[in-house]
């Protein structure tokens, strides 16, 4: 395959599991996802009283015969899903200790999920956020559109400081219809600002999924000798004695992860903490299966 972040066998294996939205979606065509509006599907929704101006063709005459009142019979509307992949392409996403760079891992996740979404007839779009650049590919259902997404993913290189928060606010403002926003980032930014951005998305009734990508070494901080640590975003450096600071560092990292998780749960986001040494296929499998409706639930 042309792109090294796509594995056809994995795609084939994962293709059997549909991606479900956890909330009602607002699509522009009929699809497999629940819509907030009443539509013309076979699924009965409710009766409501006839009001002037309603289409008389939707009157339930049988109900009129039983009760001598005019009722309109309403059905659920099924619509398609529009997914926005928000990929953080700041310098920190280029971090790699032993495994794939974080950006590569994010590419694999985003590309695979985008393929699965388009394959099931939904629309997938991409938003690349960096400090100064905010590239957006609007979601469409066309298979040819995938190529465009893959091309952008392959050409995206991590650089500069993160522009994730601003990007999320922009999406929240621009995307009027309910959509699935899938965020792939290390979330190394101000957690309060991030929480505000997530809240903004939630306010717009978007379904949020967060893939929090970290490297195992970032969590363990198992260095022995003194190191000069160079910031991948602003290039500042500091020489540190790991033995001296490891304990404090780990505590700070744990606090950060805990804070991010809490903020995500506050906005009912589908939060996934992922280390880059994990198998991405397994991660996607878990992601998809946990979103499947429970028995007896539509």
């Amino acid at each position: 395959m042309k792109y090294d972040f796509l594995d056809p066998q994995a795609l084939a294996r994962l293709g059997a599991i549909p991606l479900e939205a956890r909330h009602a979606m607002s699509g522009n065509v009929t699809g497999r996802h629940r819509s907030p509006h009443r539509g013309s599907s076979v699924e009965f929704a409710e009766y409501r009283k006839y009001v002037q101006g309603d289409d008389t063709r939707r009157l339930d005459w049988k109900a009129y015969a039983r009760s001598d009142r005019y009722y309109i019979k309403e059905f659920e509307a099924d619509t398609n899903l529009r997914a926005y992949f928000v990929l953080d392409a700041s310098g920190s996403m280029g971090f790699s200790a032993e495994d794939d760079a974080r950006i590569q891992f994010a590419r694999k996740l985003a590309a695979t999920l985008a393929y699965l979404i388009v394959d099931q007839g939904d629309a997938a779009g991409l938003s690349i956020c960096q400090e100064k650049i905010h590239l957006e590919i609007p979601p469409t259902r066309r298979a040819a559109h995938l190529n465009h997404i893959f091309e952008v993913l392959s050409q995206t290189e991590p650089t500069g400081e993160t522009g994730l928060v601003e990007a999320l606010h922009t999406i929240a403002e621009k995307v009027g219809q309910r959509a699935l926003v899938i965020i792939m980032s290390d979330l190394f930014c101000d957690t309060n600002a991030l929480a505000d951005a997530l809240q903004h998305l939630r306010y717009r009734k978007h379904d949020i999924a967060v893939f929090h990508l970290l490297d195992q070494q970032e969590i363990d901080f198992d260095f022995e000798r003194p190191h000069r640590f160079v910031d991948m975003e602003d290039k500042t450096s500091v020489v540190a004695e790991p033995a001296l600071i490891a304990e404090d560092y780990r505590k700070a990292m744990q606090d950060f992860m805990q804070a991010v998780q809490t903020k995500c749960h506050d906005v009912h986001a589908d939060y996934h903490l992922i280390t880059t040494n994990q198998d991405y296929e397994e991660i996607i499998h878990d992601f998809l299966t946990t979103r499947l409706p429970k028995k007896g639930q539509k």
Partner: protein
Amino acid sequence: MSFLQQSLLWGLFAASIPIIIHLLNRRRHRTVKWAAMEFLLKATRESRGKKKLKYLLILTCRALAIAALIFAIARPLVGGFLGWGGTQIDTVILILDRSASMEQQASYGSGGNRESKRQSAIASVRQSLENLNNPRLVLIDSATGNSQDVPSPDALEELSATSATDTRASIPTLISNAIDYVLEKSPGRTEIWVASDLQESDWAPDQGRWEAIRTGLIDLPQKTTLRVLSLAAPAKNNTSIRVTSSRRSGDELVLDIQLTRTDDETPEAIPITYSLNGTRSSNKITLNGQSYQFQKRLPLGKRDGVGHGFVSIPSDTNPRDNVCFFAYGEDSPTTTYLVSEGGESADWLNLASAPPGFGRSRCVDIKPNSAHKIEWSKTALIIWQASLPKGPVAQELIRYIEAGGAAIMLPPRSESETTFLGLNWGQQTISPRDQYFIVDEWDQSDGPLRNGAEGTLIPVPKLKAIKRRQIVGEATTLASWDDAQPFLVRRVIGDGTVIFASTLPDYTWSNLGDADVLLPVVQRMIAVGDTRFGSAFAAISGSTEAQTAEGELRNRLDSHAESNTSNAAYEAGVWKLGDRLLATNRPPSEDQWQIITKTRLNALLEGTPYKLFEDQGQSDPLAQEIWRAFLIAMLVFLITEAILCLSPKAGTSPS
């Protein structure tokens, strides 16, 4: 603190290894690109404080452990005596003060035994030398002034040259001897150790020779440290007794006795034992103040033409000053030959050598050309006021002096170029109008101008001269004019003494004719010359008079104590030396307990490499090896480092 292997102290630089490794590690860091910089910076900020302190402590412990190991290997010594510095010593020259005052029992030795300052010093020096790997030991004792090699420090206590004496010590002379020894023998890295009680009379701080000693010490080819082991603990509960004079008066012996004690708080009745020719009697004297003088008359039988005895008090903290010996006999007349040019000075000299009322003194006045008539063998003193002798007369005079005679040379009125014993008379100088030559410095502890037994000064400053003649040649200056020209010089030849005075007892020269200076000088010189005839019955222990002359045998007559044969010349007692009867006693200065102050000592040895160690009276070694302590310290540092390095137990967080 000092070290036996001082060169190993260079290894202390190894203590910096942990720090260097730390710094190198910091310099040789790897560079990694890091994303979670925010948390790293936060952790770095928070790690300043306790953790940094802990890390510094670990580093310090490592450095100290290495330093302690190096110190232990360098074999450190403590004790203060050796101070900081190298102890790679080849030779130790020990100057041991054996004066009577060193027998003061200043402390208690091990097992509660009383131990004198001398014994304490010897024990301390012996142990210290053992700790210093037994360098070569050269002993210069104060009694003989001779240097001798001591094969082993253990032998110190056994040597007769370290035993107790009743002598005084001349510390400046002994230090000069040590300097001469170093210059002569070049014994390698040398230290001069002086063990003394710092008695002021022994150190003679007023002597002009200290300047020469300082220069001598500084100018030694190799740096030679002078270490003074001070045993200056003040004397306590000590009383001394002294017979200041003994004379016959009819059929009685009159003794002037002086009691002195260190404490004067309470009146004390002191029993005094008198022994005269073996017959003992005693009485008690109540001592109220610090000192008490009284007279004791002991009856002599008519047959007692010659006799001896002693007075003693019970033993106290210094057994050496509890007895004083005396002897008496028929006085023989003393003869002085005055060889003069005549005139007023001859009259004064005649009067000073045979004062009226001194029946046993006689002066024979002769001219220089009659000098061959002098009865050399019967003369106590020769006063020569003329051109210096030459030819056979000069030879006779030299022989006379070498045999123990005394001579006073006074300047001739006319110029003379004759040289005698390397000395001759120089130019005659006259003081400026209305000004005088005045003596402003003289030896108060030695020579004919020395202080009296009670410390009274000879009124030398009263001497005013308007005319004098320069003394040319090498001799010991005993007194000098205010322009540093010598007034009185001395040469010691064989057993005798000759002094040169630069002015005359003549009113056209000076007021030397006044009895203030002339009389004591002449009489003391007569006493010096008279001793060889046995007409003097008292002498100072260790003095020339107390030594046996050729052909004389020493025999102790008193029954007060046994004496050590090899040490007898330096012990007090009554002796039969050939035909002579002699009572020897410690010098009066040994009963003066003034101690030279530390400030004064510093001033005396200023500029020299000198160290003072004050012994507290314990006979502990002056230096002890303490490498074990450093090894223990190293272990402690390593254990501390290990404890600090151990990570704290991971806390079990609640699930």
